[in-house]
């Protein structure tokens, strides 16, 4: 039995089922991260301490580098999808491979950042700011790992679908791209909120 509406658009929703599914999932993710951002704001405005000084211990150059890496990865991700629409599978492999490399680059930079904090005995238990810093960045890091798993599957064994159902495979990459863009978008908010303000 075939799964319906994997490629064709449903009349009632105006999109295919895969796209509807990912947007419902991303809506739940917005609520999850939205709750954490709200928590951060409420804790900050309710605190007697000056939080604008607390983030001086964070490494802005490394976070900036990570921002550049994630923006680049969103560009390579969308290029991998565009390559499939132009029926260029070789370019897809190249761009998706670059996306995965950027994702690993982000995690490696994050590892150095976390290591420096732990070396200076800065833990989530040190203060409220670091507690929410580690919570939000670690949760975001878990989402990056999730993206790596999905993208690596589509780069490797999952890409065999291109030979049998190219349109469906292209749709899958679009869905993975929407998820990846959401993960990048969360970082675009985390960077100024945690590191700069």
């Amino acid at each position: 039995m075939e799964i319906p509406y994997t490629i064709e658009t449903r009349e009632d929703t105006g999109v295919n089922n895969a796209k509807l599914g990912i947007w419902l999932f991303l809506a739940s993710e917005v609520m999850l991260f939205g709750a954490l951002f709200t928590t951060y704001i409420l804790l900050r405005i309710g605190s007697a301490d000056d939080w604008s000084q607390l983030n001086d211990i964070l490494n802005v150059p490394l976070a900036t580098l990570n921002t550049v890496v994630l923006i680049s990865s969103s560009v390579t991700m969308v290029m991998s999808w565009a390559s499939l629409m132009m029926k260029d599978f070789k370019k897809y492999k190249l761009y998706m491979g670059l996306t995965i490399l950027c994702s690993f680059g982000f995690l490696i930079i994050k590892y150095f950042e976390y290591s420096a904090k732990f070396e200076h005995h800065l833990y989530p238990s040190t203060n409220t700011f670091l507690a929410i810093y580690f919570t939000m960045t670690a949760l975001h890091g878990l989402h990056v790992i999730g993206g790596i798993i999905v993208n690596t599957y589509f780069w490797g064994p999952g890409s065999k679908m291109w030979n049998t159902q190219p349109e469906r495979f292209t749709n899958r990459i679009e869905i993975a791209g929407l998820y990846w863009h959401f993960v990048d978008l969360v970082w675009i908010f985390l960077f100024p909120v945690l590191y700069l303000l």
Partner: protein
Amino acid sequence: MSLKTFHIFFISLSVLTAIGFGVWLLNENAPVFAVLSFLSGIGLIVYGISFLRKLKHVSFI
């Protein structure tokens, strides 16, 4: 919303981030890096326009 639309939205926010970061760097007395940040914002705008031109046949939905 298609990946094309979401990408344009993401690039627009990235441009705002680059400009905001540039202003923050100016306040931190780092004008050279501030200029780099503004230039990267302009670079992202140029990229966004070329991206839209390249994928003009793809739906926004």
